[in-house]
């Protein structure tokens, strides 16, 4: 039992950190530009694929930096020649633009790489066991992912708190109109933030592609969950995104790793429901089957009861 809890916690932490790497960029973009970037997870996917291709020539360590930069450049192009053009028509076309972009990116990935998973592996230098607990090995790569995420969080925090650019970004998170009034070139700020946000997602992809699988469906797998995190954490709040990522990551891992249903509680207090009863499906429903439902349930409940999320200052 303890073993399950400890490992669920460790794995949940890891999953949560990966979620955070995606959602921090999205929450910046969303909070500032009001764009619900549907293609955000697609940039995460591009990060994984780019790192895989680059890694074949330059090795993993160079790719770890180069892939996010390349994806960030793509993000800048997307903002400059795509989103900005659509911006004048309002938020709905912006949303639809990123929605279509997600389609196109997925198809392009299929075109260039095919539908099969890539053989994208961790570098040999990280391919060892860090420690052994309860007879189960904990790979060093997972610890590496955690380190990358923590470094990213600290870097982001310092950037937002200590630099001039960070101050402008923070300002536009709460009052975009005032930042414009101060004479900053808001479209250019938008472009940089979009590029930066997509680069963060790509960084998540570089390590996430190894931890999970690198295949064309990976964006679609992550996309909706990242929205849940951003909404739960609160618009534009990086600490909120961190907390929400942890909650979702650990919750989902736990539910998946413990085999549990209402019937267990029932048995405990001495109530049983016959298998052919009307409520039997719900009664005997395995927690592993509830796991995919949970994030969406959280999303809907958050939006109904607390549209600001955990740490957000404004309503969605």
């Amino acid at each position, binding site marked *: 039992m303890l073993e399950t809890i400890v490992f669920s916690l460790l794995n949940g932490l890891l999953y949560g950190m990966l979620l955070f790497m995606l959602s921090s960029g999205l929450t910046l973009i969303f909070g500032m530009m009001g764009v*619900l970037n549907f293609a955000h997870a697609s940039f995460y996917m591009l990060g994984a694929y780019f790192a895989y291709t680059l890694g074949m020539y330059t090795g993993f360590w160079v790719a770890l930096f180069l892939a996010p930069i390349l994806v960030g450049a793509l993000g800048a192009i997307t903002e400059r020649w795509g989103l900005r053009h659509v911006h004048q028509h309002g*938020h709905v076309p912006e949303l639809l633009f990123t929605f279509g*972009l997600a389609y196109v990116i997925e*198809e392009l990935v299929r*075109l260039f790489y095919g539908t099969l998973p890539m053989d994208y592996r961790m570098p040999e230098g990280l391919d060892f066991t860090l420690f052994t607990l309860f007879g189960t090995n904990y790979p060093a790569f997972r610890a590496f992912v955690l380190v990358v995420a923590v470094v990213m969080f600290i870097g982001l925090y310092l950037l937002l708190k200590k630099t001039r650019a960070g101050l402008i970004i923070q300002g536009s998170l709460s009052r975009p109109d005032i930042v414009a009034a101060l004479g900053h070139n808001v479209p250019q700020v938008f472009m940089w933030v979009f590029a930066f946000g997509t680069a963060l997602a790509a960084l998540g992809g570089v390590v996430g592609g190894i931890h999970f699988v690198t295949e064309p469906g990976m964006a679609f797998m992550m996309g909706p969950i990242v*929205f849940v995190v951003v909404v739960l954490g609160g618009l534009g709040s990086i600490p909120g995104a961190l907390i929400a990522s942890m909650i979702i990551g650990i919750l989902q891992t736990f539910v998946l790793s413990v085999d549990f249903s209402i019937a267990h509680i029932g048995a405990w207090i001495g109530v049983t429901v016959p298998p052919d009863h009307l409520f039997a499906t719900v009664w005997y*429903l395995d927690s592993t089957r509830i796991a995919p439902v949970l994030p*969406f349930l959280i999303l809907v409940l958050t939006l109904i009861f607390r*549209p600001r999320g955990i740490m957000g200052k404004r309503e*969605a």
Partner: protein
Amino acid sequence: MSTIQQEASARANAVGNVWVRRGWPWLACLIIALLAPMVFSSGHDIHMLSSMAIMMVFALSYNMLLGNTGLLSFGHAVYFGFGAYIAMHAVRWSNDAVLDGTGYGIPIELIPLVGGLAGLFFGILFGSFSTKKAGVVFAMISLGIVGLVEASSLAFTGFFGGEAGLFGDREDLNSLLGIAYGRSLTVYYLMVFWLVVCALLMYLLKQTPLGWMANAVRDNPERAQFVGYSTTMVRFLQFSLSAFFAGVAGGMFVLVEEIVTDEAIGFLLSGEVLLAAYIGGIGFFFGPIVGAALVVYLESNLSAVTDAWLLYFGVLFIAVVMFAPMGIVGILFQQWANFRAGGWKGTLPARLYCAVATLVGLLGFVCIVELAYHYLRSWDPGRPMTLLVTTVDATTATPWLVSAAILALGLGLLIFHARPMLKRAVDAAGGGK
């Protein structure tokens, strides 16, 4: 004739004209729908036509939200899906009743209505809390709901039939009219019937007080409140009614396919209906109809011709969002209005020139995409491929260069020569009223 009489007869004429003016697209559509099976007569084609009818109802119901009320939903397939599943349960129950000889069951003609009522029920259920706010909050709640439902469809296998889905048999249903619906052509005409009924009802709904206030709430929610309307209530009613029609489409789907899987309730279909409505044009009643026909046609025919069809699809959508937010029908309408106002006079050559340049650029783009798919995805890239009228080897440079040249030529002409020319021509013709 006295002036009063003249006025009266002029008004009578005008009334007649109004009927002709408003009626002709309907009549044209109906005739096309009835005659289409003569042209598209293969089994595959008839199936496609039926799918079009279903998608049209679905896209129209979607536009009750996006176009009329300004609600962007990413989860409209939930109501289509519940309509389909419950209609399927009704079909199965009726199948049992008919086969056992224990009862009459629900007649096949009314199965879509069952789907509609199911859609209405779930529309009321989910609409009661999701329509409190519009905008991004609504969009995200709709996303949450569709995620919730799609994920649950795998958990509750009793109702959703698990991954295999649910089967039913339309031939083992009673018919009100005593018609046997074994042939897909017969079912197609049933689909046309429901399409016409639903389209007419949705058209009329736009003209009711609720339909008007839906527009009012979309354009200026605050003012709508100050003339006595609760914006939440308007959105909720509109949402529920829209879910009803989505459910009808789901019920129609069951009769054509005789199988429902979780594809009918999830993200993908929700996205597809959004694409269909938007590409067609959400500001026009006939927009979603055209969009649905186009999307289903591309899906069912383009996928056989090229592997790249999803890419084309996505690019088409982005192009519409970026350059033609009023959709295909919107562009046609704009050009038509322009033509009627005499705006084409003197600018026709420039307009044609623009169109040709665009087409040339498009041709180059298609060639490159096809080459890329052949080169990257074919088992043997060196195998000769047919491109347009010639056969080329995708591993050599020539076809690539030629395609790129065509693309560059088309785009170059359009951006640097044709568009400026059109602009000058329009200016010269007096602002192109």
